[in-house]
């Protein structure tokens, strides 16, 4: 009966779209995290100062390496904090939008 559903895949093998959706959410999350790290470390280590040339100098390179390590650590700490609060935040968001 699967060909009656909106997203059947009779001729391509069975695709579990919930699984795909979860993988896409994970991918988007990692990408967003990475992009914010690139931007934050750029602001911390390079900034809006006039660039002397197109290379990363020694100080900038060292700064970037430490910055990535610290950013990852901050993410872990924040994750632990959110978990210790029992994921209270999403439930709160729900109430903010009324009768969803």
């Amino acid at each position, binding site marked *: 009966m699967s060909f009656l559903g909106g997203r059947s895949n009779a001729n391509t093998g069975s695709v579990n779209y919930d699984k795909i*959706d979860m993988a896409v*959410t994970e991918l*988007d*999350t990692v990408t*967003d*995290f990475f992009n*914010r790290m690139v931007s*934050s470390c750029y*602001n*911390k*280590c390079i900034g809006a100062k006039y660039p002397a040339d197109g290379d990363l100098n020694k100080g900038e390179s*060292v*700064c970037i*390496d*430490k*910055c990535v*390590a*610290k*950013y990852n*650590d*901050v*993410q872990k*700490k*924040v*994750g632990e*904090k*959110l978990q210790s*609060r029992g*994921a*209270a*935040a*999403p439930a*709160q*968001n*729900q*109430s*903010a*939008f*009324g*009768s*969803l």
Partner: protein
Amino acid sequence: MDFSSFNSAEQAHMTKIIEKKQMQDFLKLYANITEKCFITCCNDFTSKALSSKEESCVANCAEKFIKHSERVGARFAEANADQAGGSQ
């Protein structure tokens, strides 16, 4: 938001979408707190590990951001309820 005009199939569909969005909202809050607290707390990049001062800053900052976000949510919900109830 009011979904009373939705039939049961539409409500089921919408519930699934909302659940997915709540997960995404939570992940975005997570990314926002990480970014804000990193910017607030980390300004020394001579060492690789967080100093104890940075660690406690991150813990306080995250706690504070969550409480801030909850308080904004509560006030926002009240304002929406006021408006829906016609008292404003």
